[in-house]
């Protein structure tokens, strides 16, 4: 009946699919990764960059858990910047320009070196299931593949429809076919599906661009890697170029607005508010007389340039006219035009927090199919879906990260609890405990978890243990060392003390930095990494705020510990309004904490639920007592 058999099948080899397949294979499970084109594994469909604020946090967390995005981004990176350093360390976030071809190459290399992982080029046309359980998949060529778990990561391919001006045609990405058969299968399975839209800007030929008129944007002189495992030093190989639109350009856009499928009603799907197309920016922010444009090279061996900030669905002739009015781009040649794409997604309230669908057991969804946008968001979900598919096979409890543990946990909780009506992107403001969720402590938070599920290799683990040791010794030195106030550090800053203060009390002064104390020899230490210093210093400098946050996290954990059984019948719970009961039934919250976050759930309805669960507990206690 079946031609092949695997423990885990992953459909789609984008950023979600690669992490999912790698994770499951690392856990020792026979894993097949299906892609329609094996040359385009880990293709960056949009901008040639990884990370950014909150997204950089996601990459760090993926890395800490034993995922691969951070390693690949470090190796294929061609310009590195740490963002937000003018603020506190909780919101520092790494970002890197990537060599697109290099990224694909490095990722494929890592996947090929992963034991138990098999790359397969084929179009999947059907997910086979019976009695609410996945049994396998069917390929276009008629073969059937058996598997009790399937991770589906379709990106923009599911019923993908590209719009360029008045023209529209089915495609997964420009130049690649859409997944039509698979889309019918998902719609027929009865999921709550919808349509979303995203867009991408034109790409230019560097030889036709006058870069001398732009303001260059350089990488950091001391690049920050994504991965805790990257030990080689990183090198900036390119720079980006900043410019702005002006009113002349806005006039062109306004004049041609009727030809934008966004405004003609041709596009039904909802696009992201924080990644608007250039025509959206001009319409919605009428008083803004200029919008930022950043030219980003797509690699070191190519002339192709990405025009960041000019995502559009306007017709090609209008795109050309806009470019021709921009200083330095007057004679720019387009390699590829910008376009908008609509695609199917599944309302993520159809998922459990393990990313398994509630309807079909063994089927996991990750990435844009869950209504998200961004490589990092996709990779984070892919990793968790891969891990949970693996745990499903081995019979382990699903791994679910809490809102107090990781950005990944926040993202998944937001999705499965609230659903989404626009492409969901991560922001630090979504993290109510963001002071604790820093890039410098992602390993402390997550590497032990990654180790437990079998993702963290021995080498990775040894490096982690080493760093923890280093951090422990540094913290101890900070607490125990009293400084010599005659040291030139204090004299040169005319800081006077009555007695010999400890390092810890010195660090509470905003103007004193641990890095300087170490550099100038006030505190003697072993060789440290910059982030060791950040971790140790942050704990002391912002102790008051961190403690305040810890209290809140404690409250959250208590509420999370109040579990709600899967089989609660909300419709028969007296006192709950029909609307509330329906919401609870749809989301099926796992804890009273998750229930409290469902929009429209009132304190009174939470009390009713809490009360009922307590009653059930009493009843089962008294019954077991009778037995």
């Amino acid at each position, binding site marked *: 009946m079946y031609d092949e058999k695997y423990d885990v099948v992953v459909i789609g080899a984008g950023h979600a699919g690669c992490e999912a397949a790698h994770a499951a294979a690392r856990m020792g499970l026979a894993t097949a990764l299906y892609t329609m084109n094996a040359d385009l594994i880990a293709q960056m469909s949009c901008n040639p960059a990884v990370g950014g604020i909150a997204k950089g946090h996601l990459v760090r967390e993926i890395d800490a858990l034993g995922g691969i995005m951070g390693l690949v981004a470090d190796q294929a990176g061609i310009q590195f910047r740490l963002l937000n350093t003018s603020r506190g360390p909780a919101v520092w976030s790494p970002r890197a320009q990537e060599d697109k071809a290099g990224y694909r190459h490095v990722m494929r290399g890592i996947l090929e070196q992963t034991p138990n992982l098999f790359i397969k080029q084929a179009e999947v046309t059907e997910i086979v299931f019976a009695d609410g359980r996945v049994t396998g998949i069917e390929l276009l060529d008629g073969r059937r593949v058996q598997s009790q778990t399937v991770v589906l990561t379709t990106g923009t391919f599911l019923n993908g429809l590209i719009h360029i001006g008045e023209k529209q045609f089915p495609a997964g990405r420009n130049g690649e076919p859409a997944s039509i058969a698979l889309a019918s299968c998902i719609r027929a399975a009865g999921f709550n599906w919808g349509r979303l839209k995203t867009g991408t800007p034109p790409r230019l030929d560097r030889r036709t661009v006058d870069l001398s008129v732009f303001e260059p944007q350089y990488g950091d002189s001391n690049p920050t890697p994504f991965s805790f495992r990257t030990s080689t030093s990183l090198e900036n190989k390119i720079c980006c170029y900043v410019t702005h639109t002006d009113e002349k350009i806005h006039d062109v856009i306004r004049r041609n607005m009727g030809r934008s499928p966004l405004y003609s009603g041709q596009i039904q799907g909802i696009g992201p508010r924080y990644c608007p197309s250039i025509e959206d920016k001009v319409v919605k922010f009428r008083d*803004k007389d200029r919008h930022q444009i950043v030219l980003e090279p797509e690699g070191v061996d190519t002339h192709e340039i990405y025009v960041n900030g000019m995502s559009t669905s306007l017709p090609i002739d209008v795109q050309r006219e806009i470019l021709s009015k921009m200083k330095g781009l007057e004679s720019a040649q387009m390699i590829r035009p910008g376009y908008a794409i609509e695609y199917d997604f599944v309302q993520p309230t159809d998922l459990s927090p393990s990313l398994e669908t509630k309807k079909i057991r063994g089927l996991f969804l990750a990435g844009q199919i869950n209504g998200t946008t961004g490589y990092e968001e996709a990779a984070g979900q892919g990793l968790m879906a891969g891990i949970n598919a693996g745990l499903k096979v081995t019979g382990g409890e699903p791994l679910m990260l809490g809102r107090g543990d990781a950005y990944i946990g926040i993202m998944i909780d937001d999705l499965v609890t609230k659903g989404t009506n626009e492409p969901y992107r991560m922001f630090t403001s979504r993290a109510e405990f963001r002071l604790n969720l820093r890039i410098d402590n992602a390993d402390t938070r997550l590497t032990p978890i990654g180790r437990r599920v079998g993702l963290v290799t021995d080498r990775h683990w040894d490096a982690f243990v080493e760093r923890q040791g280093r951090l422990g010794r540094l913290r101890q030195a900070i607490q125990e060392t009293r400084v010599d106030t005659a040291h030139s550090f204090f004299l040169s800053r005319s800081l006077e003390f009555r007695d010999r203060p400890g390092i810890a009390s010195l660090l509470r002064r905003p103007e004193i930095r641990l890095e300087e104390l170490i550099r100038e020899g006030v505190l003697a230490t072993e060789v440290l990494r910059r982030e060791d210093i950040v971790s140790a210093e942050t704990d002391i400098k912002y102790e008051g705020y961190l403690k305040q946050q810890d209290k809140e996290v404690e409250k959250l954990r208590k509420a999370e510990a109040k579990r709600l059984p899967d089989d609660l019948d909300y419709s028969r719970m007296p006192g709950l309004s029909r609307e509330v009961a329906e919401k609870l039934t749809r989301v099926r919250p796992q804890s009273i904490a998750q229930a409290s976050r469902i929009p429209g759930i009132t304190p009174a309805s939470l009390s009713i639920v809490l009360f009922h669960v307590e009653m059930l507990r009493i009843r089962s206690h008294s019954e077991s007592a009778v037995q």
Partner: protein
Amino acid sequence: MREGLHKIVSLDETIVAISTPLGRSGIGVVRISGRDALCLGKKFLKTKSPLEHRRAIVGIWHDDRGQSIDDVIGTFFQAPHSYTGEDVLEISAHGNPMILGRIVATVCGGGARPAAPGEFSLRAVANGKMDLIQAEAVREFIDAQTERQAEVARRQMAGSLSNRLRPAKEKLIDSIARLEAGIDFAEDDVEVPDDGAIAKEFDPIIESLEEVQKTYGYGRLLAEGLRVAILGKPNVGKSSLFNRLVGAERAIVSEIPGTTRDVLTEAVEIDGIPLRFFDTAGVRETLNPIEKIGVIRAFETLSEANMAVIVLDGSMALDDEDRQVLSHAAGMPHVIVINKCDLPEAMTSSSLNGSVSVRVSAKTGAGISCLSDAIRGFLLERQSDVADDFVLTNMRQNEVMLRAIGALREGSSALRDHVPHEMVLLNLYDALSALGELTGEVVTEDILARIFSTFCIGK
């Protein structure tokens, strides 16, 4: 945003409430339940022998400054052998609502929180202390919560508080959105004003919140009534005045429980505001120990009153004892009543150094309306704190307002100290969630929506 969590009633905290019906009664019981119950008892209840499971022990309840509040009987019930299944301490005190209120206040000051309606029963269920049929009574808890919500909703529909707070809340959301945009969209060209300028934006927000909070002084009078202490040396006619004020049908008051404390209370109404008169024992230097207790109680009553009515005997000249009484009330709003104006006058107004006084006869009722006018004048003065018809009347609302104001002040000063914005935002979210409790929730999506409608963000 700390979404959702505030909606959950925590069963881990120690709770306290007056568990006998409110109002005058011989004995009032305050019940404390939770893991800190015993610890709080040890702290505030001074007893000769230590608290023991199921033993009633006589003692004196003190406040956190060590001042005695009342002679009480404390009974401790050790978990799980108590009504709620947790450690429970029951304090039986005299039934004066003011005394019971002070006991609850000290317990709250020690870290407990006021119990939600029906919460003791809910805990009993949670700890397996009730069978299912009994537990149905816990519906009361849920109903009460629903009712309270309905009340809040009703008030919101009427809109007065929401309307008053909305502009401040909107401004706060704007500031938060701006700071968040600066953090999350540092890559875009989002302009964030400098810290000092943002901190300045909070001044009018704080001011407008304080304006609302200030009305609680008057609102509390509306809700709880004006507490008027009647004060004077013995035999000036305080009790007759008291009887006259509270009306003829209340003339026989000696049966009212609480007389043993030598503080009589009774309520009447002026302009829709309930007035509570506290008749006190005569105030004078005394060596008589029993009388001394009465005098101490009189002063305690005075310290909790909103205003004092000082009674002098108009048929006699002002003496040292009168002067002493006058000096006790000097620091608070008061009206001087020269009683017995039906008798030949012996006291001259000039001897009162120009203080406003009214001449009455408690016996005939003459001049009583002038006294009412004087009290009304005091109320009008309070009312001037109220800018429009809106008044904050609810203690919980007042506490939430104070929390919002405190958090904003903290955030503002942190900004001036250039504390990183993601930390300042902790204070601002605290303030916002406090305002949200009063006007309706604010969630992360609202902040994001504000960012995206204010700033052109994205590439």
